[in-house]
């Protein structure tokens, strides 16, 4: 497979890379370049080389998962490129081909699919109060814990309509609308993406020796959610 040709089928790629002159201004402004061992200029160089092996290595690397998709790069590129959009195309292709499981950061896609992804399809929200379990979100603090443990009364106090019918914040979205979202996922490739994430993740989980809770391999999900090898910053 010619990976460069595959990338050109993605509008985010064709819009994101329109001839890079390797000036490095994207790296200068990039927050991920500050805190990770990451350099968007080098990514653009690698892609422009059209070297299939180098692109394959990139798709399997930690590198493409460091971007925060803030699009700060877009504001400064003198050629109008957007490394953040290139990253989105690379991440999509990496998941389509199953390469994402070769990296610690890439393996995390399963955790995101199981939480945010499934929330969208089955509830109509990316995030819900019941997802914000204090043990998984200690950064939300004592107030976060108070909200989680008293959610119905807290949300009622501030005028939300939590799990209610009709309008309002955090309302229950009518089932007929959720059925439409489900069909959208079926027709547009949303479930294809989800299935690929599950399929390749299961293979990886088994190869890494995770076998508990075979149905949903929750031990593997817990591992990918919490593991950081400490080698993602410049050494």
């Amino acid at each position, binding site marked *: 497979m010619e990976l460069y040709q595959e990338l050109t089928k*993605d*509008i985010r790629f064709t*819009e994101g890379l329109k001839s890079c002159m390797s000036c490095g201004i994207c790296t200068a402004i990039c*927050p991920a370049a500050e*805190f990770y061992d990451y350099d968007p200029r080098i990514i653009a160089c690698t892609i422009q080389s059209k070297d299939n092996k180098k692109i394959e290595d990139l798709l399997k690397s930690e590198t493409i998962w*460091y971007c*925060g*998709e*803030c*699009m*700060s790069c*877009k*504001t400064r590129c003198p050629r109008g490129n*957007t490394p953040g959009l290139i990253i*989105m195309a690379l991440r*999509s292709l990496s998941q389509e081909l199953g390469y994402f499981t070769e990296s610690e*950061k890439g393996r995390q896609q399963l*955790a*995101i699919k199981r939480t*945010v*992804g499934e929330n*969208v399809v089955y509830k*109509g*929200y*990316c*995030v*819900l109060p019941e997802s*914000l379990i204090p043990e998984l979100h200690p*950064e*939300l*603090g*004592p107030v*976060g*814990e108070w909200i989680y443990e008293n959610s119905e*009364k807290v*949300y009622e*106090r*501030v*005028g*939300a309509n939590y799990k209610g019918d*009709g*309008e309002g*914040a*955090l*309302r229950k979205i*009518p089932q007929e*609308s959720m059925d*439409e*979202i489900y069909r*959208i*996922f079926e*027709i*547009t*490739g949303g479930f*294809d993406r989800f299935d690929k*994430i599950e399929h390749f993740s299961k293979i990886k989980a088994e190869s890494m020796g995770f076998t508990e809770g075979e149905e949903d391999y929750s031990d593997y999900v817990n591992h*990918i959610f*919490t*593991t*950081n090898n400490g080698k993602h910053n410049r050494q």
Partner: protein
Amino acid sequence: MKREGKIQVWQEYQKEIADDHYFYVRSCIRQNFFPGAEQTFLKILRNELGKDIYENPHHTSCSGIAYHSDVVPFDTIQTIVARQFALMTEAGFKNLAVSCITSFGIYSEIIETWKEYPSELEKIRNYLKRATGREFEVPQNVAHASDIVYKFKEDIACKMKFPLINQQTGQPLKIVEHIGCHYSKMFPSKGVGGAEFPHVLVGMIESWGGEVVDYPERRHCCGFGFRQYLVMSNRGYSVSNSRKKFESMEPYKPDAILCNCPGCPMFMDRWQYVIEEMEGKTYGENGRGIPVLTYEELAGLVLGYAPWDLGLQMHQTNCEPLLDKMGIRYDLSLKYAGKDGKLIGKPVMECEC
């Protein structure tokens, strides 16, 4: 930069914002963390400004967080967005009022994609018809909710009960304004003032009597980073970005931080708590944190709405220092009370950030 150059840039980034008849689409993060802010926005528009703003209960998340975490493909989010537009079209509206900044970026990106690639628009029309039977028109105007508050900032100023003045010193309150990255970094012409000089929050602060703080890391991302926060083992990235901003703004002693994105105030509020826990450091006065507000909350305070009605009790970094400076009275015994006035328990705080 020459003054002429600045005026030229500014003229280019004047944005057309519809003045009435809005179709409102909510924000996942704002509904979870700042639901009072969304209710306040609707109240201000309907009750203070007499505007027509409609919410269809059948609308959903745009799925932007899932898209920017790369678990949802581009075709899927385009079709979800098309569905939102279909609901808007069916209700007879042409002006979209968007609560979330990521959503605003998504709607802008998708509408621009359809302009550049008409075949993509036809493909999505086809997908939506097959999946739902619905058809849609592209909105005539897409405004972020903060754009609308900006547009009517002077009307709000006319009804002001608590200007942004420190009642103890008589001086304007010093406010850091933080613009969400997806508001104008991808499409500067879609934001009031563009990417380098966004004016949407500056205009509110200045109209309401405050003073804007300029500091070196003013345009730096807060660090949400989507997957960099959603996965626990990545959160070091997220807190590091916010910490960089706090360290940079600290010498200017801001009285508050104001945000238009729903995620940014959540992070800037919570990461102050985390940094205090990890390093023992706080960035506000007297060992406290810097209060972080959404623009709806600030507009509500300025108009005299009660702090706990606005939902300020849902913040981790206490807002009371700002309320005291503004001369706003509040009853601490009711801070954690429910609608019936009875205490709903209390957060167990080890520190008063």
